[in-house]
């Protein structure tokens, strides 16, 4: 059964995420980032950041809310029982600090079939309150046996 590709190019409503100091600390602790710039305001400011800075992979926290409706969209038609997260790319821009408000927009960039698997590729772009791009992400989900 071929994959449905009608949803390619579809865009989803932007989400906003307010970055909290304690959330950065909680995330940094979970992934083992012990550097003071991720925990201590004075250390972060001394290193040139506005406030405590998020580890790069904190991008997951603020961009995921925009991805949910895209991945769950019936028009995209993913078979979740057979889905795995196959690949991920982040391209970082401005650092994200406590107090930032991040807006993320997601869209379906590619749907295709290869070797009996369905590839569902999404792109999200996140910007901060000044309009600067903070991360551009490519999320690849693979469905076995389409």
């Amino acid at each position: 059964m071929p994959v449905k590709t009608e949803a390619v190019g579809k865009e989803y409503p932007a989400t906003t995420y307010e970055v909290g100091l304690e959330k950065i600390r909680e995330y940094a602790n979970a992934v083992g980032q012990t550097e003071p710039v991720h925990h201590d305001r004075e250390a972060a400011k001394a290193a040139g950041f506005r406030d405590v800075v998020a580890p790069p992979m904190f991008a997951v926290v603020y961009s995921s809310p925009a991805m949910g409706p895209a991945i769950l969209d019936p028009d995209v038609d993913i078979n979740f029982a057979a889905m795995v997260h196959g690949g991920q790319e982040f391209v970082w821009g401005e650092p994200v600090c406590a107090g930032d408000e991040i807006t993320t927009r997601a869209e379906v960039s590619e749907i295709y079939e290869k070797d009996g698997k369905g590839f569902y590729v999404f792109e999200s772009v996140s910007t901060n309150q000044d309009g600067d791009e903070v991360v551009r992400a490519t999320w690849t989900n693979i469905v076995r046996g389409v």
Partner: protein
Amino acid sequence: MADLNEGDAIPELRVTPDKYLPHRYAGASGDFNPIHIDNDFAQVVGLPRNILHGLYSMAQVARAQTEAAGGDPRALRRLAVQFRGMGVPEEEIVVSGTVTARDGDRVVIATEAFQGDNGIVRNAEAELQLS
């Protein structure tokens, strides 16, 4: 500036996620998929046990890169990974990498993460901006 030239290995990062790490990562990331935090559920759907979040494993790969660059989070400009074998708690993760190109202060690193001989992050490529 970190001294990273073509052919150099980056320092290995070794970390052993404990039994409850997936629960803490679920809370920190907001991803409460039961395959990560419910051992019984994971086995019902055919997994050996509850598995690590792929993005947690990717975060370890990211951490190895920023540590290689001297700890500045601004150094990591891009990271692309493929998730392959499933990672599990209570087994050591080893992240390794090799510089494949250097152009001025810009460095490209081929990197991967293994648990034993199980590659959990494969064919990953990082770009660092050294300062």
